[in-house]
């Protein structure tokens, strides 16, 4: 008698749709991820404006100044004075001039004085920072040698 030799069948799920979906998700997250905003400080709550559009070509070099307040978890100001956030350091706006001068000096050595002067100083300030302090920072920037300044705002409509 012939014994029918049945092949040991392993039940295999069809993985193709899952892999398709997973690749689509990866593609989505890769596109949505934004690796550029490395100089943005989350402590600064920027005001929003509908005309604020990202520049078409990113600037070659820029000096970004984050100005904001020290706040607790609920957003209450711990100190009425505005500070410039420089990494983990917080520096009073009035005391920032030496840092700006150093920044300019470094740029000058790297790329020459012409390029250093053309570098844009981008100011990212909290919506509550007094304008006079922003003007003081701009004045300090001019005194150390910078010529171009830009003010940042979030794209979109202000909710408040």
């Amino acid at each position: 008698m012939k014994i029918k030799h049945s092949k040991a069948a392993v039940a295999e799920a069809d993985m193709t749709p899952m892999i398709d979906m997973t690749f689509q998700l990866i593609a989505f997250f890769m596109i949505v991820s934004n690796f550029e905003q490395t100089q943005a400080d989350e402590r600064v709550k920027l005001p929003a404006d509908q005309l604020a559009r990202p520049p078409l070509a990113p600037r070659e070099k820029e000096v970004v100044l984050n100005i904001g307040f020290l706040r607790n978890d609920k957003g209450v100001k711990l100190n009425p004075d505005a500070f410039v956030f420089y990494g983990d350091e917080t520096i009073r706006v009035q005391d920032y001039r030496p840092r700006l001068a150093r920044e300019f000096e470094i740029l000058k050595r790297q790329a020459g004085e012409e390029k250093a002067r053309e570098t844009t100083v981008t100011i990212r300030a909290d919506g509550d920072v007094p304008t006079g302090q922003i003007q003081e920072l701009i004045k300090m920037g001019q005194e150390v040698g910078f010529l171009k300044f830009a003010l940042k705002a979030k794209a979109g409509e202000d909710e408040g």
Partner: protein
Amino acid sequence: MKIRRHETDSKIEMQMSAMIDIVFQLLIFFMLTLKIIAPEGDFNINMPLGAVAPSDDQPPPPLDLKVKIEANPDGSLKQLYFGSRGLGNEFPGSFDRLNNEIAQVAGGGQGGFSDDLEVELIPDYNLHYRYIVKAISACRGRMIGDRQVTYIEKIKFAPIQAPPGG
């Protein structure tokens, strides 16, 4: 004669588990690094060097518009002036009025762009930054649908006003 039957219908299967492992790791990486941040834009401002006299080779703009923004002691908007005319202190209503005024001066209301105009902003020292951004935006232009219409590119700050109480 015994005919040996070849199993011709068996599929060659790729080992997928390693690939799926990697793909999931990538997926988790991108999910964790995802930060949803609204895109940021910026406004360029002209800042002529403080007390230096205007350059000789460049004639000054024929029409220098002044926008004065007064602040309450707490930094909120007290009054917005276009020239000497008060435009109110509602936010953002008065800035919409400023935008309309600028549109009439710069583009005749046709959405044009004036290169020979300059706006000087005169903010009080303690005015909150969000109002200055609104003022710059109102002078710069407006959005019509998805298109940006530019009115005035040249925007500068007046010299710093003395801080209140010193």
